[in-house]
């Protein structure tokens, strides 16, 4: 079955394709920019915890607006987040983590205890 397309439809189709390419390039660029910056979790003027207001789908550019609290993990400092991720990578072994970071065992244990305290305070 042959579908005859009008000139206007062909132009519209091409424009849609160009738009997809453009969005892809834009999102790639945005993604690169995002990874270079830390997500702020505290208000720079009053130190209150920030909330998420807008979420965006990178596939179709849909925006979701609302008021969402940051997950507890995101409210830890970036150092604490990195520490916990590394701790999980070491299967929860403080000894291994201490060796990996060239730190003493009590130092990493203190870091873990301080992170736990911070998490409890976030609750």
């Amino acid at each position: 079955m042959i579908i005859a397309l009008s000139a206007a439809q062909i132009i519209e189709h091409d424009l849609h394709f160009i738009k997809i390419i453009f969005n892809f390039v834009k999102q790639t660029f945005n993604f690169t920019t995002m990874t270079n910056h830390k997500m702020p979790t505290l208000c720079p003027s009053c130190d209150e915890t920030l909330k998420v207001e807008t979420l965006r789908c990178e596939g179709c550019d849909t925006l979701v607006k609302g008021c969402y609290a940051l997950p507890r993990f995101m409210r830890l400092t970036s150092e604490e987040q990195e520490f916990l991720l590394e701790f999980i990578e070491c299967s929860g072994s403080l000894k291994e983590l201490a060796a990996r970071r060239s730190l003493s065992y009590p130092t990493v244990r203190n870091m873990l205890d301080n992170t736990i305290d911070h998490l409890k305070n976030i609750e």
Partner: protein
Amino acid sequence: MSNLFNPFHRIAGVKALVWGEFFTIALSVLFIISDVAQDGFMHFTLLDTAAWKVLLMNHLAWLIFALLLYIGGAAMSRSRVRIIDVVGTIGFSQLLLIPMNAGFYIPAWRASFAESINRIVTGVMPQEVSMLPIVAMGVWSMIWLVLFVAWSYNAFCVSCNVRGTKAVIKFIVAWVIASVAVTQLAKLIYL
């Protein structure tokens, strides 16, 4: 630079304990060779005594202080405190006692220091005695003592996960009790 005042972010536990034991033995050997003895927690004197007594006193001074800090730290810390970390890190701090007492093992320094002390003890007028060796010894020891205080306090903070005013008070209390206990033990041992 931070490692100079706090090496315990890098070393603790068994490794620090082994080094601590090595430094204490090295210190004792230097004391035995130079006829020096520890007659107080941070007090050293020229005394010709048995080698085992020097070795015992140096170990007792270290262990008593470490145990007092462990008791104080374990009581106030919210972390699980390991005794090996406290004893090990305090043991590692013994390294500083070696240069602190350098005046006793460097022959020329020791001779001039001993002569000045002898002249004062025998009643020679102070203006006739050269105070330079005594002052030099005092200043030199003080520098290392300050570093020793910094190291042992940081050892306490890292191994027990404590900080702030309460930690400072517990550290001072442990230092005072250790001073009294070690002085009394020294009297018993050197009798």
